[in-house]
């Protein structure tokens, strides 16, 4: 783990010089580099329990020669493809809930469209600095381990009852049915509106925030939160991805190798998950996020180009 951390940091350190010389480097180097990076990010994302977009956007925008517009478009599509692939089995096995996710996804997707439009209208440097600040904030959030703070028998609040945000969750291990219900729903809806805006503006996906909001704020069981997060993410990212597609901010040479790499990496990650300590990988992800967040801020401010 320490060796791979050093290799990743060395690669990130060397990349800006290569990127600055991007015009002279043959075009095919970059899709291959993206594929290799995305493969590694796919492994890390699964083991650390985060979406690929949150790592992809700050690293690629900071260390690769592509404009931030294209990186954000790719980040959204990367997160979208991951969520779409994982969705069917999670929904079929009851590890995700449509009824829980639909109201959150509706609000999140409206704000994601607004976030995407705002992100594409603002000056690149301002978005880069804001992205760096958001990434540092996410790294801080990730330092806190998940675990619901709400105890007692689940009773939906009035809004959750009206929207049907309750049901029965079957534990995959024991097959035991346990009832669940959303609580603090108005606050949850507000948080998902914010998550949607951030996802659309920065192309980050939203997995890192969805799980915390569902589990810590709304009192949803952790496994159901993780599964439902993927469904909500697929709807939010679909909405925002269309804004980037329609504005020409999607480059196939950036998106395709990244999507293919991260999907293969996720498959490897599922195997790696059994062999390594998830908390150690999570710590590595936090370190990478801190480095990438600082790099984004310094690049946006023109200090380290």
């Amino acid at each position, binding site marked *: 783990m320490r060796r791979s951390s050093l290799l990743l940091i060395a690669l990130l350190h060397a990349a800006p010089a290569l990127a600055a010389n991007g015009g002279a480097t043959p075009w095919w180097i970059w899709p291959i580099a993206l594929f290799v990076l995305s493969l590694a990010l796919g492994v890390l994302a699964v083991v650390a329990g985060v979406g690929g977009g949150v790592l992809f956007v700050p690293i690629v925008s900071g260390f690769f020669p592509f404009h931030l517009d294209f990186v954000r478009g790719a980040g959204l599509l990367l997160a979208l493809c991951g969520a779409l692939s994982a969705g069917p089995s999670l*929904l079929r096995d009851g590890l995700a809930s*449509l009824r829980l996710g639909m109201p959150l996804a509706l609000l999140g997707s409206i704000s994601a469209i607004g976030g995407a439009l705002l992100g594409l209208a603002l000056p690149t440097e301002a978005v880069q600095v804001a992205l760096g600040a958001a990434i540092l904030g996410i790294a801080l959030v990730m330092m806190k381990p998940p675990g619901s703070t709400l105890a007692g028998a689940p009773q939906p609040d009035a809004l959750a009852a009206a929207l049907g945000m309750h049901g029965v969750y079957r534990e995959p291990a024991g097959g035991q049915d346990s009832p669940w219900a959303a609580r603090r729903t108005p606050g949850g809806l507000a948080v998902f509106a914010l998550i949607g805006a951030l996802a659309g503006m920065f192309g980050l996906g939203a997995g890192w925030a969805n799980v915390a909001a569902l589990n810590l704020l709304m009192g949803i069981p952790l496994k159901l939160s993780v599964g439902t997060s993927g469904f909500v993410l697929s709807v939010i990212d679909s909405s925002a991805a269309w804004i980037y597609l329609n504005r020409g901010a999607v480059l196939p040479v950036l998106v395709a190798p990244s999507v293919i790499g991260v999907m293969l990496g996720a498959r490897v990650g599922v195997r790696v998950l059994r062999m390594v300590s998830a908390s150690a990988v999570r710590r590595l992800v936090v370190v990478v996020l801190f480095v990438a967040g600082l790099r984004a801020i310094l690049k946006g401010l023109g200090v380290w180009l």
Partner: protein
Amino acid sequence: MSPVPAEQTVYARWLEWGTRVGLWLLIAAFAAYALGVLEPQVELSRLPALWGLPAERYQAMAGAPAGWGWLRFLHKGDHLNLLALALLSLITVVCYLRILPIHLRRGERLLAAMVLSQIVVLLAAASGALAGGH
């Protein structure tokens, strides 16, 4: 009784097929594009001089079509990739359209209204009407 509602199982089935088709199309389209089987609209060797520009300037310099204009150029490798990505971005709408009649048949008006609202939001985003310009 299964704790998984029927509409969720239907949604999962459609999502699985749509994603499978979209991802295989993306892999095939990218292989055809990168290996030169299909000629791209923007030469791959020109890309390093263009991909550092903002999207709007890239479009102007590369002569890339705006909005859904790429549909007219599906014989070009780069635009065929956009078709695959557009399909992947449309799957959610298709799945929502599929479960709408289930909620309507059951008389679940609030859920049906929510599904319908989501379809409208996604189609509005896809239409390009919201994308505007700088």
